[in-house]
């Protein structure tokens, strides 16, 4: 019954689907195999409670590459991005900070806290756009291998160096500091308002096991300005119908290009014969042959579970074992029969339509991290909260709301007890932390879904619950992602490729790994086919 494919793609997450679509558009016969009953991986919309549809895991669109939206014509396939305007941060002293996309308004708001900071905010924004321009092309390149003698790779490195040299001296300094400093240290150079620094720094720690004072977290500050450069739409937004709509649009584009997609098709094994991938075996025993296998799963699942150690070089296995996942976040999804009322800014105003950031001070953020460092979930966690029903009422019954709380820190490895026992205590801590600022929240909760890192691992197949398929720390980025010497989407097994978030440039609904990997795979196999 098995028919032979050019490429079998493991995993129907957004990267797997982007990857498949590009391959099919280049004329390859492609099959995507997804373990779950729905497509999307961590980018899914599910009706968790009757009538309430949630972006269960990933909940905002940030960095989806504009070239992918264009190439795959995602708008025609139903993708519609609704703006997510602003970030509202309630403070412990009863005040708040509310930044919006309207620049003048945000300036006035920051000036309320500090006039100096309002000035600096302008300068900062300009500097970040410059930095973003420098970094952007790096996202879509295949990382060179600095230890090889391949002149092409050296040339690529040299080119980055040349572009760096052309930056203005101030920008050079900013760039180097962004790559090496902690978010707070970097922001300290610009601002004095604590709540502003805390909220901005929060973007640097999302999905990592790092605190806002950990070096290496400054870099992610840039991501907030990338969207502006892309110009296609605002930096942050919701997909109409929930995040799953993105995956559905990509899947539709892929199908149109000729990709075959099967759900509920969990894979047990990647077949390897004399160092070459020849196909996959499903859990039900079905075998599917393919010239090339491309996995969007993380390297631990792909290699240690599906390929097996004996097929792999010892050094590579050692590197994979050292590859750090360390999931650090959880998700609490609430079905509400009313809106939260914030003490610092009552009423159902515009401030509820953007992100609500529970990051009242740098110390609050850092103490949340300290809890996790010693193996317990944050008693007072950092949260990024959105209420998408205010923008897209279609996803809940009339008058009702869904509220999504991204929560950090929730370390996968607990020092005491296990997540199955602590799930509800964790959920309670989240509600308590919210209730500090919006006491009425308790009265409006109809249903509560708590996802611990363990649940994220179980449901979405993300090892240790890491939402980016592995820590985004400097030693696991660029030519080191996922393993030294194997950052070019190829693997030690011939005919086996990687195309997921565990490859450069990493996680987030960006699609870049899937697209970059397709480029490498196509150029490798073109030569062979020719």
């Amino acid at each position, binding site marked *: 019954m098995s028919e032979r494919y050019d490429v079998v793609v493991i995993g129907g997450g957004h990267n797997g689907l982007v990857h498949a679509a590009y391959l099919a558009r280049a004329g390859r016969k492609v099959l995507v195999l997804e373990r779950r009953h729905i497509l999307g991986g961590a980018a899914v919309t599910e009706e968790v409670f009757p009538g309430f549809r949630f972006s269960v895991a990933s909940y905002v669109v940030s960095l989806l590459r504009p070239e992918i939206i264009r190439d795959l014509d995602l708008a025609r396939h139903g993708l519609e991005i609704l703006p997510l305007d602003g970030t509202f941060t309630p403070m412990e002293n009863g005040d708040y900070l509310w930044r919006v996309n309207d620049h003048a308004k945000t300036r006035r708001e920051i000036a309320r806290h500090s006039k100096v900071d309002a000035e600096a905010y302008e300068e900062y924004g300009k500097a970040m756009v410059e930095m973003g321009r420098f970094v952007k092309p790096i996202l879509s390149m295949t990382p060179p291998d600095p230890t090889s003698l391949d002149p092409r790779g050296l040339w690529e490195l040299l080119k980055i160096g040349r572009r760096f040299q052309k930056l203005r001296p101030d920008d*050079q*300094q900013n760039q180097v500091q962004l790559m090496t400093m902690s978010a707070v240290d970097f922001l300290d150079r610009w601002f004095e308002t604590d709540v502003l620094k805390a909220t901005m720094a929060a973007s640097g720690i999302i999905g990592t096991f790092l605190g806002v004072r950990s070096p290496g977290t400054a870099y992610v500050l840039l991501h907030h300005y990338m969207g502006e450069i892309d110009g296609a739409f605002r930096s942050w937004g919701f997909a109409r119908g929930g995040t799953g709509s993105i995956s559905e649009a990509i899947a539709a584009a892929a199908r149109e290009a000729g990709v075959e997609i099967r759900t509920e098709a969990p894979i047990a094994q990647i077949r390897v014969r004399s160092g070459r991938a020849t196909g996959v075996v499903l859990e039900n025993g079905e075998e599917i042959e393919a010239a090339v296998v491309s996995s969007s799963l993380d390297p631990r699942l792909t290699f240690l579970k599906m390929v097996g150690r004996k097929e792999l070089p010892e050094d590579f296995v050692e590197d994979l074992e050292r590859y750090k996942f360390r999931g650090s976040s959880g998700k609490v999804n609430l079905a509400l029969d009313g809106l939260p009322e914030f003490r610092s800014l009552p009423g159902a105003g515009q401030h509820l339509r953007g992100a609500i950031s529970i990051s009242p001070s740098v110390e609050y953020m850092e103490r949340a991290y300290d809890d996790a460092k010693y193996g317990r979930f944050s008693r007072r966690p950092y949260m990024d909260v959105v209420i998408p029903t205010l923008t897209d009422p279609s996803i809940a019954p009339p008058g009702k709301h869904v509220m999504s709380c991204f929560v950090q820190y929730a370390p996968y490895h607990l020092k005491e007890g296990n997540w199955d026992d602590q799930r509800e205590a964790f959920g309670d801590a989240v509600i308590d932390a919210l209730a500090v600022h919006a006491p009425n929240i308790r009265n409006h909760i109809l249903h509560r879904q708590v996802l611990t890192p363990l649940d994220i691992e179980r449901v979405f197949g993300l090892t240790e619950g890491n939402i980016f398929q592995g820590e985004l720390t*400097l030693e696991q980025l660029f030519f080191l992602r996922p393993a030294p010497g194997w950052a070019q989407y190829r693997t030690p097994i011939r005919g086996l490729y990687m195309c997921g978030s565990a490859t450069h440039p990493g996680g987030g609904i960006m699609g870049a790994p899937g697209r970059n990997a397709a480029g490498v795979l196509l150029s490798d196999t073109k030569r062979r086919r020719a």
Partner: protein
Amino acid sequence: MSGAGRRDLIVIGAGPNGLVAAALLAKAGFRPLVLERRPIVGGTAVTEEFHPGFRASMVAATAGPLLPSLVRDLDLARHGFEPIRPPVRVFAPSADGRALLLSEDPARTASDLAAFSPKDAERFAQFQASLAGIGALLSPLLSITPPRIDRPGGADVLRFGKLGRSFRALPRRDAWRLLRWGPMAVADFAAEWFESEPLRAVICARGVAGSFAGPWSAGTAANLLLAAAADPHSGGPGGFVRGGMGRLSEALAAAARAAGAEIRTGAEVVSIQVANGAATGVVLAGGEEILAGAVVSGADPKRTFLKLVDPGEQDPAFLANIANLRSSGTVAMLHFALSGLPEFRGLAGKDPASALSGRIHIGTEVDEIERAYDAAKYGDFSPRPYLEATIPTLSDPSLAPAGSHVLSVRAQYAPYRLKTGTWTERTPELAAAVVRLLAEHAPNFQDRILGMKVLTPPDLEETYGLTGGHIFHLEHSLDQVFTMRPLLGWARYRTPIAGLYLCGSGTHPGGGITGASGANAAREIVRERKKKQGRR
């Protein structure tokens, strides 16, 4: 003759880097005048009496070590410098009453480690070899001037080419390791190698020594690798100087004088005079003005630019960048005069005089060191700080009356700014915490104390002129090293003011008593001044 006439070069500060620079400049034919604020030379490398009859190396306890080329070229042995290399590098009592020993002799280290973990004992040799390989690659970096990255010159390209070649000559595995380890947290780095907690803690300590960072802070593995460039022994610095660190400074001063430098102590520079964008001389605290062709500052960058040079003469953007440099100290020094050797636990069957001869590491778990750092993040010190102690009298009895001992402690983390109270109020609390912690491992410690001297970060600032009390002038972190020390574009010992140079720890390669900053600065100054003279 002092004060009269114009000097060709003035060096501000007679710390090790200032003295090295002066000595090398004098050897190159200049007649530098070194001006030292304090009554003694040495900066952070000084021996002082802190209790009647007891002398200690007040700030730096061990040599970095000093670049071997300097020891040779300046003939320091002839000038009285005598290094002491104790047989043990680290003694680390553990929570269970045992003690970990890292010795100079690798075989002994391995056999001592085996008691904790046979696996670790086995891996230690491999660790040592890997570190030595990387240290050997990095070590030439200490003695180079960071390249210009905006417009690299021919020499820079050549130098980088060479570095690139030696990087490629590393075994591929080590090349990747270097790239991967640099940005890592030293706690992860230690865990990759070893399984026993006391050993991990000792390794971690090297990544955080003197830094405002904990073992779980990213980038701390780089500190360890850079330290390996100066001394590849994985136990960390272990060299004392006979007569204390002050003797090293005196030898440097003697070498500088012999080469033709003049050194004035008790001469505090309060201002660097600038006219038309060029340094013209200095003004001393008494009002005396000394004109000079060039001024070389061994003071830290903040003190140099924010205090000594008139802001009106400087670019505000440059000054803002200087003000933003991170230089908040985290170290307190405590010196104890002891009536006898304290009896440490975990020494059964060992000769205490030998076992305690190196550095004594008090921080039994990685997380305990991290917790000590946590306190500092919030502007406090931990009741259980991480301590590094030395008993220099074991190898050099001349520092104390016969039979008695000096125990010097570097306590971390002691933040410059406290959230509650002042250092004056809270110093006794810190001292009590240190004594209590030492007594956990050496129960009779308290009974042996005859006297004590505590130096908090504000003391280090006031007495030793270290802005923010940072013993390395500026934090050693990825954003403040090499081409970024002190600032990107100004890492080549020159400054925006013509004829004003930096030669202190705030320049590449930074703190630790290696003399490398002073030597690099001298080389650049000679090159530039000679070029100028040639043009005349």
